């Protein structure tokens, strides 16, 4: 067995594109997919924008038996898993079922489903609550449903760390590959903030209140004032490189080369946040020096303090403006646990094309000493990419993605 864990299949669904081709065609040119919420009437709420997936028809893609028991984010994940399997060129039976597992991330589970059941409970009575409520809401639902639909009986896992969880899941999947599993599905999906207003009830001021889709989510911009939530995510198939090559895998997109994860000091201590350490641990894990990194996919929180922390960490590791930084999630909004897996997909596609997708809408504030790729995509040879994700509460994760050839 080789030491390298590689990405061999991709299933992606974001507000600006479904499937590898659709997603990349939109992302590479900076197609904005943020708009006014349509899932419900957002008028009563201070924050009214979202990145919504508009062209996803679950009824066309999933068996009707699954629909009554699944939340939207699970449907998205199940379809993405189908796509990833296909993209990996794996047929049922190709890999023994005990050698295939699934590790996903979640932020809020199937909350729309759960909220509907809460409504039934309190407005109609406990006997109106669905038999599916016992799992359709909970955080483990996607790992369970994916393993059942695809006959995977190997290791399972579910991590919940808000945005960073998407990378933590991929790292856990790599662990399972290193321990001998042949194939692990990993990634994350969320459709958290689209839920009938409850997700809009965040009174902590992190959601942008702008009504202009082009001037709402503006990380590293002087006008940064919160983020726009979005729905979607990505699932990838991970395999040991040698196993993948032996089976003649049609796609070997790239390698998950390094991972680091840290937690910030308790607020109020005045000490340095943990992001820099997470980056350093990930680089050391990958055996990569800072100057070998070709692009950083930024967490891009979109609030001045968090943007400052991220810019500082980047400068500390790479030097002021020492590496191209991009935040294509400005096109879709923040996808919670789905965001970082989508970045990993963007990273391998950037490696494949030699093109860094742009940060849209943002005009870089002179405050930040970073080389932010804005406006237009930037052609550049990319062999090593660093993906960052930070979560509410102080979680920092970093993954190094490297060309597989």
């Amino acid at each position, binding site marked *: 067995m080789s030491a390298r864990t590689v990405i061999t299949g991709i299933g992606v669904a974001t507000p600006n594109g479904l499937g590898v081709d659709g997603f990349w065609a939109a992302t590479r040119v900076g197609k904005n997919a943020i708009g006014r919420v349509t899932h*419900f009437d957002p008028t*009563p709420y201070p924050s009214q924008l979202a990145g919504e997936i508009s062209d996803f028809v679950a009824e066309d893609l999933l068996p009707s038996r699954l629909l009554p028991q699944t939340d939207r984010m699970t449907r998205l994940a199940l379809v993405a898993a189908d796509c990833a399997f296909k993209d990996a060129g794996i047929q049922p039976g190709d890999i023994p*079922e*005990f050698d295939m*597992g699934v590790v996903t991330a979640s*932020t*809020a589970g199937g909350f729309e489903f759960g*909220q509907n059941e*809460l*409504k039934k*409970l*309190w407005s*109609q009575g*406990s*006997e109106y*609550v669905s*038999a599916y*409520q*016992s*799992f359709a809401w909970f*955080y*483990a639902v996607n*790992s*369970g*449903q994916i*393993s*059942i639909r695809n006959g*995977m*009986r*190997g*290791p*399972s*896992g*579910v*991590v919940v*760390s*808000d945005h960073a*969880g998407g990378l*933590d899941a991929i790292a856990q999947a790599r*662990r399972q590959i290193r321990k001998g599993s042949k194939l692990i599905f990993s990634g994350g999906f969320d459709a958290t903030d689209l839920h*009938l*207003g*409850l997700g*809009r*009830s965040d*009174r*902590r001021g992190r959601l942008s209140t702008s009504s202009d889709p082009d001037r709402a989510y503006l990380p590293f911009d002087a006008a940064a004032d919160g983020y726009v939530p979005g729905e979607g995510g990505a699932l990838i198939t991970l395999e040991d490189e040698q196993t993948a090559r032996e089976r003649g895998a049609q796609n070997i997109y790239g390698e998950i080369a390094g991972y*680091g*994860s*840290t*937690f910030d000091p*308790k607020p109020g201590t005045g000490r340095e946040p943990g992001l820099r*350490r997470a980056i350093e641990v990930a*680089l*050391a894990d990958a*055996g990569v020096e800072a100057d070998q990194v070709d692009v950083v996919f930024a967490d891009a929180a979109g609030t001045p303090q968090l943007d400052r922390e991220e810019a500082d960490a980047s400068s500390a590791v790479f030097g002021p403006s020492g590496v191209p930084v991009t935040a294509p999630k400005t096109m879709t909004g923040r996808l919670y646990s789905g965001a970082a897996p989508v970045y990993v997909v963007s990273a391998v596609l950037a490696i494949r094309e030699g093109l860094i997708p742009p940060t849209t809408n943002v005009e870089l504030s002179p405050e930040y000493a970073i080389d932010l790729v804005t406006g237009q995509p930037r052609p550049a040879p990319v062999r090593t990419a660093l993906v960052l994700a930070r979560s*509410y*509460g*102080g*979680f920092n994760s970093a993954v190094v993605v490297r060309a597989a050839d």
Partner: protein
Amino acid sequence: MHSTLIVARMDLESSAEVGKLFAEFDRSEMPHRMGTRRRQLFAYKGLYFHLQDFDADNGGELIEDAKTDPRFMQISQDLKPFIGAYDRRPGVPRPMRWPPASTTGRLPHEPAARRHEGRRPLMGRRVVITGVGVLAPGGIGAKNFWSLLSEGRTATRAITFFDPSSFRSRVAAEIDFDPQLHGLSPQEIRRMDRAAQFGVVTAREALADSGLDLAGFDPHRTGVTIGSAVGATTGLDDEYRVVSDDGRLDLVDHAYAPQHLYNYFVPSSISAEVAWAVGAEGPATVVSTGCTSGIDSVGHAAELIREGTADVMITGATDAPISPITMACFDAIKATTPRNDDPEHASRPFDGTRNGFVLGEGSAVFVLEELDSARKRGAHIYAEIAGYASRCNAFHMTGLRPDGREMAEAIKVALGEARMNPESVDYINAHGSGTKQNDRHETAAFKLSLGEHAYRTPVSSIKSMVGHSLGAIGSIEIAASVLAMENQVVPPTANLHTPDPECDLDYVPLTAREQRTDAVLTVGSGFGGFQSAMVLARPERSAA
């Protein structure tokens, strides 16, 4: 002699008032003699103690700053009957179970040396449990928890948290928990869901029990992994009622949302709270694999130490699911027992008359350390996490294959990782939820994985006593397993009077049993189709 430390020996039953005093003290402005890097607070059995230098030659009086602070003096007087001290000078015998401060040559207040944080050798690192904290129904603190189990008492009762009259199942295993008594501040109580509060309290207990807070640890090399199946469901249920006006509003009224609603939305806030409480700054996450979360969380943490990502992990699980929405969803699938007329005997794993599980709540958190460094500092070692595995059943979100194949597979892989034969297993701490489907599935899995040895091995389910606290129970069962090892006693399966003929193993009915428990297998099974197994063993026993 200024290098002696205060340790506490307290009986929870007798010291509620003392706990309040300490909680007050925690919020006071004591001078920090030990630097600001780490809190001086430590906890044991849910009570809080400050760490100060202690003058053993002077009859145990507190010295220097503490002496001059009237508040601390008052507290120390009140506490005198409860506080003991031990002497760290060479040749002085140490009290049992109380590890001394660091033997790595550095005092508690000295910062740890910065170490290389990056790739470390993957082989050879072994992981042990050095601290235990438990909050279980009828068993607040590890000591009371073990009393409950070893005496075979049950903590299931008619639901008191809300009016359950419209529900099919109206029993649960509730904890009488007062967060203030456990030292949580009003702000902590406001921002944390009950599950998070449990997690913080048990984390503090575990850390104090490990003695690691006295020894000092490197926050960057210390991580947190907490398991939870349903996170802050109870908090969300409560808040939803308000913002939707009991479901009258389709679009909720955000003006009624509390400041900390987002904490409830994202269960990772639980790990954040625990990390803050203990001062951990390494990898942190929440593991949420339904009812196997409590095993998977600890298994995940052990892997992080083994691979070199962390040296210490604060890990365990918490759930506080006893709320109308949870009861309603289990009512809908008839998974919980309708035995409402006899709540104390409602949870009957492996009994022929069982008809569903009893929902519970609680938390258990552990301190995990790398074996060599735990030995070096003279830590009390409860058990080695010798092997762990989880498997998907790829079958059904709530159903189990009767053949128990995936659980058997998880058990075999965990035993393999522990390099142990099935014959080494002295005791099986079962999932034993008390549904017919589970009990038979599990029995089949034990036979499939252990062969004939399954018939010779005592198997018991503590859910008969503390109910099924979803994601938390796996960790609570790990706590039960290590306490069984500690006491060389197998806890019983309560309420087991009429065995199910299809469950034909030794389920240790009603009474605890003294016997060798040097290696314990604990298993879990949960919605989503997950099966997990963990092997706990005395380190000397499982040495390869």
